[in-house]
Each structure stands twice: as C-alpha cells, then as structure tokens.
C-alpha cells in the first residue's frame, strides 16, 4: 500500500486523500505522496511486465489502494524511431516519437482522465466535469460515458469544430463559454465550490495529474528500461511537463532505471508563451497572457504549473522555446512527411521546437531524444488547409498524363 496522502508542494502540509487541491496554509497546489520504501524493484518490474496492456500496469505508482476500474484503458502507445525526421533535420541524434494520439480519444488526456474518473468513482461522485481546451473535453465526455457517470464539459465557445463534435457525441452536457480558456478555468474553479461534482482538473487535479507520469514510465519501458537523454514536450499548464520529470525521478529513486533526469525542452506557441517568457526572463512566476494562436489546445495564458515547469527546465539544463503559427504548420507537415504521423497543432508546436533545437546545434550526435506528440491531426484540420494542392482531373488517361507529364507510362 504505497499511496499515503495529499501533500502541499510549497509548504509540505499533509492532507487526507479526498477531493481537495489547495493548501489551506499557503494556497500551494497539493500533490499525491507515496511511500515506495517497501517495493522491491525486480518484483515491481515483473508486476509491470505481467500487467495490463495500458496505464494500469503502473498501478503501484498511481493513487489507488485497490483495483481501479476502467472500461476505456489508455496507454502503451507506440514509441517510434524517426530516422527520416532526424535526417531531414540534419542531426546525428536518435529521434523517437511517442505517438500519444493513439489513445481512445486520440490525445494524452485519456491518461489523466482515466485516473481522475476512477478516483471520482472511488470517492462516490456521480458527476464529473472539466475546464478544457478541447482534448480534455473529448476524454472526459468519453470516459464518463464509459463509466456511466454524468458529465459537464466547459470549453471556450470558439473551439475547433472537430473538438466540439468529438465531445458532444458522447452525450455530455457541453457548455461553450464566451471567453478564453482562462475565463473557463476561473468559472470552473468557482463552480467547484458550489457543485458536488468531480472537476477532474480542479478539485481532483492532484490525482488527475498523476496520470501523466505513465508517459514517462512507458518511455523507459519501451526504450528497454533506459532513460532518454532529452525530451521535448509541449507546455500548456505545465502539468504534463513536470509530471514526466516526476515519473522519471520516481523510477530513478526506486532503482528501476539507472542514469539521470533527461534534459527537458518545453514547447509553446509564440501566441501563448507565458512559460517560455518566464524562462527567457529568468522569472520564477509566469506573467499571464491573452492567447492568440492556432494551437488552441496549448492556449493557457495563466498556467497553473508554469513555475514548476520553468524550474524543471532550468534544473535539467534544458529550456522552453516558442514557435509561431507558420512554424506550427510546418512542424505538422514535417512530422507527417517523415513519419506518417498526423498530429494536431500542439504536435506542430513540439516538432517546431525540435527543429529549432536542431538548427541551433543543441542535439548532439547519438543523443536519444524523445518527442511527445500529444494529439491527433484530425482534430485541428484547419491548420493543414491550403498547405498542399490537390490535382483535379477527368477520369481519362490523357487527363492524368497532361497533369503529370513527367510520369512516363511503361
């Protein structure tokens, strides 16, 4: 039994494992604390390898004492070596793509929501809810449907149509708020005080965030129980970024893997870059911004874990960069053309930053780099519009030959 308490990340005060997320003494965020001292690394490893084909194989590291029920288990998404991408970037580094679009609702959010919904059920909630930039909305609506819970999903009303459609289909109460994500988030923080609901990323956030650690565990396992030298990950709230670091650290501390924390490079859109700005300016807080970017899933102007993301990038000798909308579109195309993976705008941001690191000569020969692709291209189709041309012809041989005169028939 390893899960112990909720603990304030700022002042260390401990709390019961219930639906709370803020320290009453200093207003800091609460995080799940574990006691791993009784675990034998070899035994844990065997347990993982004999476990389910998804995130519940890492149950020793998730905030449950018993068996968490989950009809829509995410995880064990492909980790692919992207040699042609490395070649196009002109680097001698080993580039790996962790394609987390290959989850039940096509983004990494299935991981965090699976954990939060299982916890909501355990705590006796009948309704789950969230403030979302889109991917989370899809995941909460789907996992609530699978678990037989009611759900309320709050999003900015101007979200991509694909993300709205892929949410509403699950029969959720979809609420489009006239405002940006930070307005939605403030509203949900207030609603969480007055409604007896499990807001996955408000009052259940300490548990929810734990789900992101499974991306780190899978990476280690899929690399043959080795750590990457560097990771490139998108940053919205900063939660994924910091929890990847925590996942690697837990396994280092337990002796499940040897080495040191990878270098962490964060990726933001230039139109919403509070974390990249704080990193560049040397601040330990993030100044909020009003987002203006095509990468809507990363459009959080007031990132809750921004300060921790900045700290982690600094501590590991990494950084946080940003790319503009054009570079995001090019990033989507570069990944698609070299790996066959079609990512959404957030992935375009991540690949755009990878390209920047390559151009600056920061990727060393032989270095093992894992790039986290967190969402699916079909959800942000507008970003690829007008980036290529379709050839329209008549159904006749001469029409084809006239269009492609260089292709000689044999």
């Amino acid at each position, binding site marked *: 039994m390893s899960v112990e308490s909720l603990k304030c990340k*700022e002042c260390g005060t401990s709390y019961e494992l219930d639906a*709370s*997320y*803020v*320290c*009453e*003494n*200093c*207003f*800091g*965020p609460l995080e799940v604390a574990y006691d791993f001292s009784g675990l034998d690394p070899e035994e844990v490893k065997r347990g993982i390898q004999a476990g389910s084909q998804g995130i519940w194989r890492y149950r020793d590291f998730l905030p449950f004492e018993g068996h968490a029920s989950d009809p829509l288990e995410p995880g064990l998404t492909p980790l692919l070596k992207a040699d042609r991408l490395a070649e196009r970037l002109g680097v001698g580094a080993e580039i790996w793509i962790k394609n987390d679009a290959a989850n039940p609702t096509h983004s990494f959010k299935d991981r965090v929501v699976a954990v939060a919904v299982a916890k909501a059920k355990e705590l006796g909630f009948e309704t789950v809810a969230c*403030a979302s930039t889109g991917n989370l909305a899809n995941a909460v609506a789907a996992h609530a449907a699978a678990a037989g819970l009611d759900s309320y999903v709050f999003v900015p009303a101007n979200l991509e149509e694909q993300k709205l459609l892929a949410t509403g289909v699950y029969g959720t109460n979809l609420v489009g708020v006239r405002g940006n*994500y*930070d*307005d939605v*988030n*403030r509203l*949900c*923080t*207030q609603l*969480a*005080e007055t409604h007896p609901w499990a*807001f996955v*990323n*408000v009052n259940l*956030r300490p548990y929810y965030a734990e789900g992101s650690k499974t991306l780190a565990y899978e990476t280690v396992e899929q690399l043959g129980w080795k750590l990457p030298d560097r990771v490139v990950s998108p940053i*919205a*709230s*900063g*939660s994924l970024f910091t929890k990847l670091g925590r996942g690697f650290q837990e396994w280092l501390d337990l002796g499940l893997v040897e080495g040191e924390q990878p270098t962490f490079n964060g990726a933001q859109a230039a139109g919403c870059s509070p974390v990249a700005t704080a990193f560049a300016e040397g601040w*330990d*807080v993030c*100044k*909020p911004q*009003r987002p203006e970017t095509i990468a809507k899933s990363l459009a*959080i102007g*007031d*990132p*809750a*874990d921004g*300060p921790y993301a900045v700290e982690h990038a600094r501590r590991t000798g990494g950084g946080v960069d940003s790319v503009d909308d054009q570079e995001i579109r090019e990033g989507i195309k570069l990944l698609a053309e070299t790996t066959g993976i079609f990512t959404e705008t957030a992935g375009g941001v991540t690949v755009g930053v990878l390209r920047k690191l390559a151009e600056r000569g920061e990727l060393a020969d032989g270095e093992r780099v894992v790039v986290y692709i967190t969402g699916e291209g079909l959800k942000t189709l507008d970003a690829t519009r007008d980036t290529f041309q379709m050839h329209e012809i008549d159904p006749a041989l001469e029409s084809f030959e006239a269009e492609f005169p260089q292709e000689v028939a044999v």
Partner: protein
Amino acid sequence: MAVTVKIPTQLRAATGGQSELEVEGGTVGEVLDAVFDAHGGLKDRITQDGDLRRFVNVYVSGEDIRFQQGLETSINDGDEVTILPAVAGG
C-alpha cells in the same frame, strides 16, 4: 469605496466560515489590507513579503489584476473582488 470580497472555500477557516466580506478601499491593496485587519489569519496564507503568493489569483469583477495594475488596481463602486486558487486547469 464599499466593496464585496469573495472568499474561497479553502480560506474560510480564517474568516469564521464567511464566504463574503464587506470592506472599504480604493485599490485592491487597500481592500486586502482591510480584509487582513478584520481576519488576521488570512494575511500569511495569501501573502508573503508584502506580495501575493504565487498561487493566488485576484480578480476585480472577473478581470485578473495582473492584466491591470496589480495591487494598485483601482476599485470602482459596485466592483466585486474575488480571491481564487491559481492551481486549477490544464
């Protein structure tokens, strides 16, 4: 200027359970000082060295004060000051 200050659940132990306070003040800083005068236990919870702690958000009628003049943001009649945790979302 009379103003209503909304207190989040997590701070109500320090206000004797009250969710709203009525105080006077011309700026956010003055309003918060008036709140601290009435409920001493609040000050250390949300400020440090004279500034708001990094996980505290304050809004004046729905607008984050960091988009305005921070603690110097002026208060108009009928404004509502809301204190909320900054650790949600994402």
